[in-house]
């Protein structure tokens, strides 16, 4: 099949970007979306035009490195990561628009690559349980009810790709923060730092320039790991509790 691509190109963070149009022939429906871009890049290289920069690493949907706005949707039309999207989702003759993640907190590095360091800094502000190596009690010292452990796991599957931010009209990372607060807050090991964790993480979230949550739900619809919207309810609940506790 043949597709027309409209791709955002931008030399670096300081430069102005623009959409460029490319045609790609001989696309196989079995190609992944990123393999289709690989094919385009090989051709550009042969023609002497610098290949398009885009991020990817594991290409099996778990590392969170890839992420493109495809026809205005984070990771494209299916509930998956960009690397797991395949060309059979598209039709011969389609025009596909490809942009980097949209968010003030994720500045463009080059072409389709963005800087998501803000998410690491949110984790630094409290997304952990403080336990030095070697200081842990026996793993069976504290039982964890299965429903709590399962819930913790379900939300711990967040891959930190940033699709929730890119999809949100407010550019909020509330789903990301809520997932971490819920993961650690469900577990007995996470209780000691629960109040300060939520306060500090939300503080850092706002400081980074992410927007506020207005319960639109685009984030959870775009999330390739289907993190549920109610982690944001949990986030608000925990914040109120912390404030009541005078944190």
């Amino acid at each position, binding site marked *: 099949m043949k597709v027309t691509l409209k791709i955002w190109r931008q*030399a670096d963070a300081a430069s102005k970007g623009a959409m460029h149009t490319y045609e790609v022939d001989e696309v196989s429906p079995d190609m992944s979306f990123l393999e289709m871009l690989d094919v385009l890049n*090989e051709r550009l290289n042969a023609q002497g035009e*610098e290949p398009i920069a885009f991020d990817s690493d594991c290409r099996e949907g*778990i*590392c969170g490195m890839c992420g493109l706005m495809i026809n205005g949707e984070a990771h494209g039309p299916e509930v998956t990561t960009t690397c797991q999207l395949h060309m059979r989702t598209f039709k011969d003759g389609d025009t596909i628009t490809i942009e980097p993640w949209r968010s003030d907190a994720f500045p463009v590095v080059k072409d389709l690559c963005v800087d998501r360091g803000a998410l690491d800094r949110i*984790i630094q502000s409290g997304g952990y349980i403080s336990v030095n*190596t070697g200081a842990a009690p026996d*793993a069976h010292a504290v039982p964890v009810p*299965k429903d709590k452990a399962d819930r913790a796991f379900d939300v711990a599957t967040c891959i930190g790709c940033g699709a929730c931010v890119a999809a949100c009209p407010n550019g909020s990372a509330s789903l990301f923060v809520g997932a971490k607060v819920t993961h650690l807050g469900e577990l007995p*090991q996470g209780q000691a730092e629960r109040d300060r964790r939520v306060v500090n993480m939300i503080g850092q979230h706002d400081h980074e320039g992410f927007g506020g949550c207005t319960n639109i739900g685009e984030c959870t619809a775009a999330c390739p790991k289907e993190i549920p919207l109610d982690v944001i309810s949990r986030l608000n609940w925990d914040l109120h509790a912390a404030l009541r506790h005078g944190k």
Partner: protein
Amino acid sequence: MTAEKDTVLDMTDLTQSPEADSPEAHSPDDEPNDAAGYYADGTPLIDKKTPTGPIDERWENRKFNARLAAPANRRNLSVIIVGTGLAGASAAATLGEAGYVVKSFCYQDSPRRAHSIAAQGGINAAKNYKGDGDSVHRLFYDTVKGGDYRSRESNVDRLAEISRNIIDQCVAQGVPFAREYGGLLDNRSFGGVQVSRTFYARGQTGQQLLIGAYQALERQVAAGTVETFTRHEMLELVMVDGKARGIIARDMVTGEIETHLADVVVLASGGYGNVYFLSTNAMGCNVTATWRAHRKGAYMANPCYTQIHPTCIPVSGEHQSKLTLMSESLRNDGRIWVPKNREDCDKDPRDIPEDDRDYYLERIYPAFGNLVPRDIASRQAKNVCDEGRGVGPLVGDFRRGVYLDFTEAIERMGKEAVEEKYGNLFDMYAQITGEDPYEVPMRIYPAVHYVMGGLWVDYDLQSTIPGLFVTGEANFSDHGANRLGASALMQGLGDGYFVLPNTVRDYLADGPFEKIDEDHPDVVAARAAVEQRINKLLTINGDRSVDSFHRELGHIMWEYCGMERTAEGLRKGIDLIRSLREEFWRNVKVLGSAESLNQSLEKAGRVADFFELGELMCIDALHRRESCGGHFRAESQTEDGEALRDDEHYSYVAAWEFSDDGEPPVLHQEHLVYTAIEMKQRSYK
């Protein structure tokens, strides 16, 4: 959840044999030397750090004898750690907690993305929570035997011992392992072994463990003990006065070449399976950090030991960029077959009558059937495809795939039960191939998955370069010639949380070290070499893309240094690699500039190092005229076509020293002595 049949082993010989003879040295005089002329013999290598005495006291003794650096002094001692997977992130966090000044580097945009994240099955630990007779000694035993007696027993025993602490640490960090209704941790059996010792977090154990280590790392960033450098790639090791004193790294966003100096350098940069181009590794996995260290004097050990996983999704076309693994547990219920007749290969498999199908594993290995060990299942799949009986799309002139058929399982168990057991894998398969495995048999093919080889390290995880330590998949130490399922995560975290922090302090106790600055001639030279190399890559301006060279190299490696190796094939492979490498340096085309994000340039540097590694892998495979674990030499097999070890001549670690470009590498042998386990030949009949 992989069916690790390698460990379906006779468990009756647990008696220790402390008087086991040390094997004879390999001498070129008493054995045909296939690799004569390709390498030079060096002096034997002895690990001076391994403690003696009863095996279960060695680690305790080493920890006690390793000197301490006083807390106040640690603020003046610095460590560079390259890589943020399980082995790197855990080490950075732990050394930061101890108060050392740590710099952590990764090529990804966040430490959380390292490829440990993709590990599915689980992590072994000798907790014996099931009361099923597990113990440190049994885990030790299974691991040495699974590694086909090519690992160092002291290291493996230590790994089995600390496995228990790893689980404690991860649970305390909030890793959401699977639990039972009583609130205690669930375990499963990882096929083959007779105990349930595998802890897991659904099919995403690697992800959850890495997030735990990453969070511990980020906590230290906030505490100011660790500084992270993301989108940075190590391109050279800095050595001063014979010691590792830092790295030259490229800021992949600005292109700036940076010098980072420290008292110790730790490489936790993962494995080099991407030398095959197609593998289950992430796109960016590479050998550059370890290869640069190798060129500066760190020996590379057992580079030919490669694990090839039998149940991956096959290649669908020339555009393929990577391969995806599916859990080996599928072999418990799926039946593997190919058509008996070549002319049936492009037919709808449902139209091929039962009589025209060849269930080749069930036919050749009636006792184990579809559950033969990984290496045998992989090799036989290649054999039937080489005969022209492979299925799936033609890629080049070949169909590289075999059917994994659940029709019988669906009839026997019902669709619902199959869905319950394998649903997520079937979904993954459908997502990638667009085919419904409930209706049409799946297609599978083996893929490179893990490398047991890596930089040689002593018991302290220190390489042959003082001050250079190596952890995780990047070192060679614990898995011998074959790694067992659910053991990679154990080794990565064991090295990073518990081994390295206890051994590196002995080295650092010699500090404070002489201050060096960026103007030191050795530092300036290392930096100049990096700049020159980048400049060279950007100015060749030939006709071929980096990927086209990488793809061709991968094809050579797969063909001649893959699942089945022969002397003739390996020599041909070496010739082909040499001429391709020569063409690369004359004809590669890398566009863009050095002063910006340039993914072609990054790849070019990595592929350049893969050429040199690939040649050494072939030489290592050529010199080792035996079959063991992930190394099968056609010349060394039993009448039944099974791997035949040669303990008399090859019971050693092959540690290779780099010579000047164009000169043959030098082989140093570290002889393996077993005092706590008796060597046995494995059998699956």
